[in-house]
């Protein structure tokens, strides 16, 4: 037993040394992809689907590590303060990269200048949904009713910093009713439960969370906040068609690395991400979720950085002014 362990140690040491000798051969060990949310959520699923294929291209396992907390900022902080060697990357989203600086005043990272973007991995459209018993049949009459009598309505969201909170705060800001009653839940599940049972009136959330309920008719969809209708829900009009063109927002997910990550590693990661998103199997799995495959431009560090900045500019003034 003992001698066996010794052989193992020697072999491992030899491996480690040879790894150090050929420093160019990135990656020579598993890569940790930090997902700043609990396993099983939309971000985690996208990370696992994309990470699975990236492992094949990179030749080393991409290990998903869920570090949940503080609206995802705990995990992103850990990833962005790790040694910038390409072995720690993070899968963040709209909230952690664009909205967090305005949401969390004490944020310990800077998504615009303090990190190395890799690329977008997937986008999930946002829908405005309401309980099925709500009088207003379409978005236009709903918007009119909310503006006329904001105190009559209850909005549900999945907690400060969540996608549903971020996107609905944007909606309320654009409608000029920032103080509308907001009912906070811990996660989308309980919020949706109370929407289905009619305890609350409306919420905004990602298509993957609400699509099946809409199809079953347990909740009503007013509009989808993207440029085009979703193939998963062809009957739901876009916000543009429904009369609220300024409400355009998507809950994208993207990969980033700490600032200072070697260019060689960045290039390989970008390449692996692109290969994953070009793979038919991976693509189909993402499309099944109702996700949108990012354009070739958005899958590059520069393209991703532009997306982060675009949404940060859109969200920051409204989030900063939102009542707490």
């Amino acid at each position, binding site marked *: 037993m003992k001698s066996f362990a010794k052989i193992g140690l020697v072999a491992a040491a030899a491996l480690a040394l040879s790894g150090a000798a050929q420093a160019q051969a990135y990656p020579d060990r598993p890569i940790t992809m930090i997902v700043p949310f609990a396993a099983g959520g939309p971000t985690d699923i996208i990370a696992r689907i994309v990470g699975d294929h990236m492992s094949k291209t990179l030749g080393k396992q991409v290990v998903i590590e869920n570090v949940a907390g503080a609206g995802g900022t705990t995990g992103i902080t850990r990833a962005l303060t790790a040694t910038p060697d390409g072995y720690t990357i993070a899968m963040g989203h709209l909230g952690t990269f664009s909205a967090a600086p305005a949401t969390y005043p004490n944020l310990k990272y800077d998504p615009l200048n303090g990190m190395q973007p890799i690329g977008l991995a997937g986008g999930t459209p946002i829908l405005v949904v309401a309980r099925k018993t709500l009088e207003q049949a379409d978005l236009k009459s709903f918007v009119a009713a909310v503006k006329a009598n904001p105190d009559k309505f*209850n909005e549900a969201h999945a907690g400060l910093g969540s996608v549903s909170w971020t996107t609905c705060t944007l909606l309320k800001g654009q409608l000029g009713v920032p103080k509308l009653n907001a009912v906070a839940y811990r996660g989308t599940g309980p919020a949706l439960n109370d929407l289905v049972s009619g305890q609350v009136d409306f919420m905004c959330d990602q298509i993957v969370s609400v699509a099946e309920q809409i199809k079953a008719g347990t909740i009503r969809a007013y509009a989808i906040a993207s440029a085009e209708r979703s193939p998963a829900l062809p009957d739901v009009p876009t916000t543009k068609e429904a009369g609220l063109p300024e409400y355009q927002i998507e809950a994208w997910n993207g990969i980033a690395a700490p600032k200072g990550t070697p260019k060689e590693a960045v290039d390989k990661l970008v390449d692996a991400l692109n290969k994953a998103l070009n793979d038919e199997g991976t693509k189909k799995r993402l499309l099944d979720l109702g996700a949108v495959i990012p354009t070739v431009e958005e899958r590059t560090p520069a393209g991703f950085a532009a997306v982060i900045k675009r949404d940060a500019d859109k969200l920051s003034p409204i989030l900063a002014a939102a009542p707490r």
Partner: protein
Amino acid sequence: MDMFSNLALGFSVAFSLQNIALCFVGCLVGTLIGVLPGVGPIATIAMLLPITFGLDPVGALIMLAGIYYGAQYGGSTTAILVNIPGEATAVVTALDGHEMAKQGRAGIALGTAALGSFFAGCVATLIIAALGAPLTKMALLFGPAEYFSLMVMGLCFAVVLARGSILKAFCMIMLGLLLSTVGTDLETGQERMTFGFPPLADGIDFAVLAMGVFGFAEVLRNLENKEARDVVRSKIGRLLPNWDDIKQSAMPVLRGTMIGGTLGILPGNGAVLGPFASYTVEKKIAKDPSRFGKGAIEGVAGPESANNAGAQTAFIPLLTLGIPPNAVMALMVGAMTIHGIIPGPQVMTKNPDLFWGMIASMWIGNLMLLIINLPLVGLWVKLLQVPYRLMFPAILIFCCIGIYSVNNQPMDVAFTAMFGLFGYLLIKLGFEPAPMLLGFVLGRLMEEKLRQALIISRGSFMTFLERPISAGLLLVAVIVLVIALLPSMSKKRDEVFTE
């Protein structure tokens, strides 16, 4: 009847060689992680998600479900043997189960838990098959107001958990509630009582608190009290329950199954209340309530059945509404989503083989768990014979690794040590930690639901009394409290605060 043709479809799916094998693997892994303190089903299911990529969705979900209820079985083993409840639902089992182990009746406690769970699992499977769809409506009847009242009722149960002074039990409940408010406020994002310390931003993790005040503190207590731990080692006793034990636990199992099964259906982790409610009922209707907390077999049989029944009926909101009632079920949503099945109200009609296959596999899984666990009882009991000087370092390394892997946060391990000190202090001051854990588990939900209900009612407390279900629950709470306090009130003045 429709149900039988559906169940037949389910069994034809579940009895395929591959699915039986997957079910077995799931149950085995589940038992293993349940036994290991700290490593919960959440971390394991998350880690095993990618492995299921290659499987078909039914097989994958059968395996993951096996892990989930296997972990419930395994969790009671650790609670009974070393007094470490890995999950909120095992807290009650630890109370009398570990006492039984100390009396050399560990095997009987484990056997009773396994048999009770098996019975509860069988009944719960039938409930899901027969009543899954109609029961869905029940989940939708519970709004924030009803939920708040349910939590209040649950806290009243906690008083009964007290083994000594009722006043001290009240102290522990309130302390649990107070601890539950630590962390970032859900609505405003303000940090509350965190000392500005980032790892506390999301509050205190249940595993950290439970492992600290139960696990670590128990080690400290045992190190000091040499005789107590050697008693565990010297007596092994019978391995499996005999006829008398079974007769004694039959009714508690039946009642526990009913209570747990009902509460499990409620959204928002109602299943947590099941074991506590069952324990309360058993203690209150027992001829001699003083046996509870000192190794009463009913205190293991009832709550364990309630736990398993609740764990299974928790699938009802997921399968029929598509809404996950707790964190593990949220993971199951993730698992289904990865396989292209997005849970919703239509799963039953769109994927009947998945729906009924899973239900059938639950029954098979319960049978397998019994087959896995009964022979293991002897092995587990033998583990108690490991000298304590080696056993507690082993417990410690398992706890450390387990706690670390909950959130991959080293600080959590340090916090657990701190709560170990806290728990040791509580022991020295004569407090019982069990009511504190219940207060802690319910506190966070209670605050959320209170705030939600009051926003919706625009600040009117009458909402809790105007809604019939909520009012009914509050009435039960008052009755429970009166029953709990009355016997002590009628006693002599000197005993006012002890039951």
